[in-house]
């Protein structure tokens, strides 16, 4: 009896809801949702899922500014596809998988055509299947874990050097400078561990140097005396820190305090003005593997001036890559002559010699840069300057 009554009510409610909503667009009965409803008119939307909250938020801002700079330039020049404007849809990833998925889905729902975001590798990985299913190409400006490539998805393009390429750059510099013993330290995040293991592998294969120590620390702590002790015991000529600047600064500081006499090198995640602030005087002379930043690129003064005029602050890490990602997206859309994902992917694969900050672009078969564009920076007077362009 009771159950019958329940089910009649249920059916009644369901029917009522159906009746009232069947006219709405975007519902299940209205085809494939609102995703492609404005595919042929209005602005062309680009998704940018980057860290807006959390500890990587400053980098997110650099990226967003870089992208907006490109969008303004392109729109001023008449947009894409005969006058359609570009529009940036920004979503927060907060370096967290769940938030990233939410933001990616939101972007897909907003009807984006290309994704030009992706900073934390751990938060970018779960975005891949979402954009892939929606047939949306991804031009990833910052995240560069090898795992992104290893999935073999045809919509994923990396315009930052991969962990592998960064490791190669590190090895080149090690050989060039004649270091014979190296300690590798990561912070146990996806990106950092990737570079650590890859560098260790390449050093061993190469054989000109030995890995004296390869270890991990836990991010977010203050006291790194354990790893400092290990390094002092291993006594390498070079310490390569592959994590982010917060812990990097502490480790450099504590190493110097402990009287470490060797050299220190950091990976691109630690290339941030705060590094030398946290590390104090000990940061002087620290090396870094990094893709070109506007500061280190010759002839980028105009660009920097534009950026500063628009945003009132100097560009930071990944401003250029984000800028390039948007330009590249526009180029590919123009080339494809449509907002269709497959055609854009085809266009991206066909691009040859597109000028970017990192040099002329041509994608490898696995959709990475043919050359990583990594250079070696060093800290002089608290600022990163070009040490060696490895050419």
């Amino acid at each position, binding site marked *: 009896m009771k159950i019958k009554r329940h089910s009649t009510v249920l059916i009644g409610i369901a029917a009522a809801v159906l009746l009232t909503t069947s006219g709405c667009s975007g519902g299940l009965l209205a085809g494939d949702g609102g995703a492609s409803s404005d595919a042929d008119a209005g602005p062309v939307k680009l998704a940018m899922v980057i860290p807006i909250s959390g500890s990587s938020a400053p980098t997110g801002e650099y990226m967003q500014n870089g992208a907006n700079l490109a969008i303004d330039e392109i729109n001023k020049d008449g947009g894409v596809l005969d006058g359609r404007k570009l529009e940036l849809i920004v979503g927060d990833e907060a370096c967290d998988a769940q938030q990233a998925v939410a933001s990616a889905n939101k972007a897909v729902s907003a009807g984006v055509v290309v994704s030009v975001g992706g900073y934390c590798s751990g938060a970018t990985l779960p975005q891949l299947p979402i954009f892939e299913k929606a047939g949306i190409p991804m031009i990833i400006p910052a995240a560069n874990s090898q795992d992104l490539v290893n999935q073999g998805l045809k919509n994923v393009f990396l315009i930052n050097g991969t962990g592998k390429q960064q490791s190669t750059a590190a090895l080149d510099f090690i050989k060039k400078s004649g270091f014979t013993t190296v300690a590798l330290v990561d912070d*146990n995040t996806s990106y950092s561990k990737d570079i650590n293991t890859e560098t260790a592998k390449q050093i061993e294969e190469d054989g000109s140097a030995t890995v004296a120590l390869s270890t991990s*620390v836990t991010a977010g702590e203050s006291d790194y005396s354990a790893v400092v*002790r290990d390094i002092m015991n291993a006594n390498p000529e070079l310490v390569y820190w592959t994590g982010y600047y*917060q812990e990097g600064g502490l480790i450099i500081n504590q190493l110097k305090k402990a009287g470490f006499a060797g050299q220190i090198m950091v990976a691109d995640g630690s290339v941030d003005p705060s590094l030398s602030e946290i590390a104090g005087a000990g940061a002087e002379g620290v090396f870094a593997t990094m893709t070109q930043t506007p500061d280190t690129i010759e002839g980028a003064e105009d660009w920097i001036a534009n950026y500063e005029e628009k945003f009132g602050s100097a560009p930071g890490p990944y401003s250029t890559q984000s800028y390039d990602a948007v330009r590249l997206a526009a180029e590919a859309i123009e080339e494809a002559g449509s907002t269709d994902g497959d055609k854009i992917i085809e266009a991206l694969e066909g691009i040859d010699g597109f000028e970017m900050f990192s040099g002329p672009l041509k994608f490898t078969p696995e959709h990475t840069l043919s050359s990583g564009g990594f250079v070696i920076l060093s800290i002089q007077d608290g600022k990163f300057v070009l040490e060696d362009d490895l050419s």
Partner: protein
Amino acid sequence: MQLIWDGLFVGSFYALIALGYSMVYGIIKLLNFAHGDLYMLGAFIGFAVLSSLGGIPASLSIGALLVVLLLSMLLTGTAGVLIERFAYRPLRGAPRLAVLITAVGVSFSLEYGISAIAGPNPRSFPIRLEGEVFNLIGARVSLPQIVLMIIAGLLMIGLNGYIQNTSTGRAMRSIALDRNASLLMGINVNAVITRTFFIGSALAGAAGVMAGAYYGKIDFLMGFIIGLKAFTAAVIGGIGNIKGAMLGGLVLGFVEAFGAQWFGGQWRDVFAFAVLILFLTLRPTGILGERVTERV
């Protein structure tokens, strides 16, 4: 040797924070979940004080540090008192669950309050203790480390003297034994609890400033893990026991240093928490604690 020294140094931080945990627990049987965040608060207060003072010549850094230390202790202590007054006192006598949840709420409010004010990014501390590194029977020891350990030691000795020799100290001990009886004996229980919170929070604040000055980086979540560690230290020593908290801090420092050596640095926290769980299940009264039978 290096291991022992490193353990001792980190342990003295744990001990300072564990003291507050232990005192508060001993007196009102409240596990002040937000205690670690008072350490964070202390560091940020120190940061704010220093920033507002503007540039300080590096030569004055030890003296300036002491002034900032005292100021931060005062302010953090006051914050602790306010928290007790407005969040915990109304719940005295309420179910333990309610109080614990409130403490979680306080912890959250402090963390994200600071995050909203000072921003989510780590800040670098304006003054930095730099100093000579020298060898002491096989361990690398730096001058700042010694200075900080002396400060920590003095604070702990001072506290111990205070509790053993003053009337407030005696009142604290008597409340820890039996609150109702103390009330009957004419002790102003509320005043003593207020004072306890002040002292405990001030010590945590001192540890925060010292950590800021030594490590150079502070952020709004820095109190979370260290709060857990301090609690572990308090339990190891015997919660509610002042000397136990000091001992527990040092023991935990050692245990961690050795654990990290054997299992690798990334397992250090796992090791520390495993020690906590072992102690709680096998010897919940800690090294120095006495057996207490709970009456029905």
